[in-house]
């Protein structure tokens, strides 16, 4: 064997330094606070199957038993909260939901299998926060259907809400309603072929060019 | 053979095996952080009103891309002009993503009402897409405000009457009457335009 191949001392030192850099990187790397626990597919399955919905009629039990294993969280701002809220609800404004102490609290509830129900004025405004928490692994979070507005108008008769306030259904037969008002109706709203979209995958932003 | 070669071999193997512990989610590279998602989720700026959508359709705004997230069966029966059908369950598939993130296009999701469209918006936003909106109230609201607008009471402000006139004209436009009364359409359009966007959306769902 040739002399320069006898002892790979410098090679070993270089590789060790390289390994040290990697260990250093590993240690100093910022670990993300939250990771997605659900894939987009699982998220879609969840919302399509209406998992994680909390119906207003279920509130009745909660209100009568006072607390128990359900916590209501009002994610509106504290001004709206002060004007009126569901009895027993806590107020955490939505932008503060991921704050350190709130997360600690949520973790505890999660550990103790407490149902956490988010609500806002209506379901739509609580939808985002609820979906976020479901996606980062808080499978104990729920969204109140109908929101505070429904509760405020029907608080004496929450039972009747069974099956009625699910959003997402069509109130009208769109096709007939949309054409009825005018006589000489054209084809504008019914059988329009879908617009051709330039199908273009999102490009890499500013990838380096090159190669030989 | 020098013993150091053995060390080198082992070290390199360890480094290579180490890469398995750093596996990243390769499929969704542009996914945004949950913290960022919360920030955008709490902004109501993603909601657009049916009036704004109607106006942009009438003006044939080339940057508007309407996405109907209902099922294909519903889509075939009725949808907004030039809308594309991407059911919620397909939103993150390759087919669905082809319609998102197209340069210079503003996506507006809509469904029967706004919940499902909003859910599509949340998922697409998580995947890193931008310039997307949700039509508030959805098609239910579309019918109530644009197709069958209700006359405001006598006491209503001038702005509300203007809005009503716009809706009346838009109704004609969308139900096929636009050819018969072109004058009123343009009139309404001009009037509506004077309003600032922020002031608009006062009525409805």
């Amino acid at each position, binding site marked *: 064997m040739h002399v320069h191949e006898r002892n790979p001392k410098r090679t070993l030192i270089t590789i060790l330094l390289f390994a040290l850099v990697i260990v250093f990187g590993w240690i100093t*790397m910022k670990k993300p606070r939250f990771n997605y626990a659900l894939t987009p597919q699982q998220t879609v399955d969840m919302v399509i199957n209406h998992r994680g919905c909390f119906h207003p009629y279920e509130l009745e039990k909660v209100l009568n038993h006072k607390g128990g294993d359900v916590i209501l969280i009002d994610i509106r701002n504290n001004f709206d909260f002060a004007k009126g809220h569901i009895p027993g609800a806590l107020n955490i404004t939505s932008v503060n939901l991921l704050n350190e102490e709130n997360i600690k609290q949520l973790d505890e509830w999660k550990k103790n299998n407490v149902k956490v129900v988010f609500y806002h004025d209506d379901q739509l405004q609580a939808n985002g926060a609820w979906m976020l928490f479901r996606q980062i692994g808080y499978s104990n979070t729920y969204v109140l259907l109908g929101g505070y507005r429904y509760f405020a108008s029907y608080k004496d008769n929450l039972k009747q809400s069974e099956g009625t306030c699910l959003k997402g259904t069509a109130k009208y037969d769109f096709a007939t309603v949309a054409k009825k008002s005018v006589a000489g109706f054209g084809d504008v709203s019914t059988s329009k072929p879908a617009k051709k979209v330039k199908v273009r995958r999102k490009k890499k932003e*500013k990838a380096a060019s*090159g190669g030989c | 053979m020098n013993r150091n070669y053995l060390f080198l071999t082992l070290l390199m*193997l360890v480094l290579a*095996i180490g890469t398995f512990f*750093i596996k*990243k989610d*390769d499929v969704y590279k542009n996914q945004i952080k949950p913290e960022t998602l919360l920030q955008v989720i709490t902004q109501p700026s993603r909601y657009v009103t049916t009036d704004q959508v109607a106006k942009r359709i009438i003006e044939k705004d080339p940057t508007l891309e309407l996405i109907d997230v209902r099922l294909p069966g519903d889509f075939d029966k009725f949808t907004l002009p030039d809308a594309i059908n991407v059911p919620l369950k397909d939103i993150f598939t390759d087919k669905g993503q082809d319609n998102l993130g197209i340069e210079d296009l503003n996506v507006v999701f809509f469904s029967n009402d706004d919940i499902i469209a909003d859910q599509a918006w949340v998922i697409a936003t998580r995947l890193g897409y931008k310039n997307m909106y949700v039509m508030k109230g959805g098609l239910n609201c579309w019918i109530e405000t644009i197709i069958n607008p209700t006359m405001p009471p006598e006491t209503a402000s001038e702005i509300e009457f203007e809005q009503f006139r716009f809706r009346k004209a838009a109704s004609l436009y969308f139900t096929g009457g636009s050819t018969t009364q072109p004058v009123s359409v343009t009139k309404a359009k001009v009037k509506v335009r004077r309003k600032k966007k922020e002031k608009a959306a006062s009525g409805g769902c």
Partner: protein
Amino acid sequence: MGPLIPNDIITGDWNFVIAILIGIAFGFILEASGFSSSRNLAGVFYGYNFVVLRVFFTAVIVAMVGLLYFDYFGWLDLSKIFILPTFLSPMILGGVIMGVGFVMGGFCPGTSFTGIAIGKTDALFFAIGLFLGIFIFGEAYPYFANFYNSGNMGNVTLTDVTGIAAPWFALGFTVIALAAFWVTAEIEKKVRKNMKEYKF
């Protein structure tokens, strides 16, 4: 953070200065490893000198593993680096032609430059050949333009094509390379016994 120039951390004005510095490092490593000698290079095909295999595969596995770590640490965004586009059949043919050229010429383009630097006439002739080869290609291009552009798969990575995660390839290359290092060391010993004339 990285890549620095595409992310505008270093301005593009430095590009050519950096190019020369990187080139100097590249040339130094090639020459110092013995790549300026065509007999060292060709040895890999005849079993008497595996320096090409050693340098080449060590570089590939170190870079592969390193890039994966750097990407994970957020130091280097792998989605922003240049991925060589794949043109399947032209690339296979190109590789075959280059393989024959390698054995005949005893150099590859980069190594021939270092050969010229230390005064190898054969390296100079190889570089002239390179020039002619590309010139011929350019002139004859219209005859095989279709083939040249066929099989375009875009800037795909191994993961895009096979669906297997990148660490598997890094580990696979590492294991194969390390095994090859040990095996070829033995082969080299045996072959060299019969080559009194070749000085290493």
